[in-house]
């Protein structure tokens, strides 16, 4: 099948990013690791990305970090295109109610993003 060299390259970046997450050895501009949970048949697949102050800080990232961030951004774009609800939310502290905020554009500072599932009238 065509396009295999491209596939290998993506796999290497993915592997490098996973290794970096395990080691915690991030570039200077990285605030921490953010997580997108994609609701689907898997019952939420977590996808991680490097949190940065703004997309202007992209230049400070390594290839695999930029790849992970691009992937996260593409996911949000794809979710918007598919009319999937996207929320930025935090696990609530004791005594507090959940406070989800709809996400219209990808904010690379966000810690937890949920790509919720589609609903319809029944």
């Amino acid at each position, binding site marked *: *099948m065509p396009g295999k060299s491209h*596939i290998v390259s993506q796999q290497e970046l993915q592997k490098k990013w996973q290794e970096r997450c395990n080691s915690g050895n991030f570039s200077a501009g990285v605030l921490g690791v953010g997580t997108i949970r994609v609701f*689907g048949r898997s*019952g*939420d697949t977590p996808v991680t990305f490097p949190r940065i102050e703004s997309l202007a800080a992209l230049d400070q990232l390594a290839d695999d970090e930029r790849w992970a961030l691009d992937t996260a951004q593409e996911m949000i774009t794809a979710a918007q295109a598919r009319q999937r609800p996207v929320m930025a939310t935090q696990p609530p502290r004791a005594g507090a109610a959940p406070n989800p905020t709809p996400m219209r554009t990808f904010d690379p500072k966000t810690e937890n993003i949920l*790509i919720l*599932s589609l609903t*319809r009238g*029944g």
Partner: protein
Amino acid sequence: MPRSLANGDYSLIMAIESASRANSWYRVLSDRQSGNISCDCPAWTFRQAGGGTRTCKHTQIAQLLLTAQNTAHPVMRARGAAAQANLLIQSTQQQWPGLGGRWSIEQRTAQIDGVPYQFVLLGLVTGNGTTATGTVAFTRRFHPTQESMIAGVAGWAGYALAAEVARTAGYALAGQPPQHFIVTRRAGARAGTQRPGLSDILRVGDQIDLGDHYTPAQRAENTLRLFLGTELYARLERQHFLDVSSALYASEQRVYRVRRDPHKQCERRVRVFERGRYVNDFCIVRGQDVPEADHWLTVFLQLISNEAEALSVVEEHNVFSPHSDDHYAREEETVPAIWQPRAA
């Protein structure tokens, strides 16, 4: 540029699920130049013997289905209004909103090497007369219900239709198809882990085995517990509902009672209270294949943060009178629904 389905060098005849691995897809493709039929499966990929036509069981069934030798048993066929009301067509339209025209659907059953399969054929005739078809073959034991076939039909058949419509409109590039099985000779490499294209990047959420030893339902339940917090989750477990005060209908003091099936299987209708009185049921169901906990959390978070969007799926015919889903085993409300002001 390498030749590929995404580049428009091939047309997708059928996506066919592996008999042994759920949601692992082989693509039966037709080369637009030569007309030759190929498949992604290992049998076709490694069958290099010269002479004769290179085939596998998938290309053979695809050819049978395309010809008068079609032996698959028809189980359902719909056109016109009946097709428009079909769940699989509605889901495909939702995923590919640009596809418009006269839709049709046909379902057939057949066995491939003794394994029962269900074939779903979508047809679309566009306003300018373009006829496009998309076929998906599901392994019956992995996809026994219509709901379980939604993602496969909308993803694969929708892609085939969109690619054909795009091609006849003069666009050679059809975009990235959904994730499919790839034979790889790299030691330790796993098939299908390439970065997916924009159109199917969200299918990352459809991989059942994430290597974490959890079932999809367990993962979804963990997410629900995490994002509700310990207290709210305990309350939900105890009373099987949580209330959300409306910001849009503050003057009616509307409260949504988002109920949960104690068995954590089915959707339950959202009870609507106004000024403390139970007035309606809203029926909001899953629009894609997700565990029940994911659906419940989606409805709950949307009603909190984006009420208008949450309600946008509720049309007149989705609104029912009270106790519409517990008419016989009537479940009376004992906890008052008390509206509390919220910012709109």
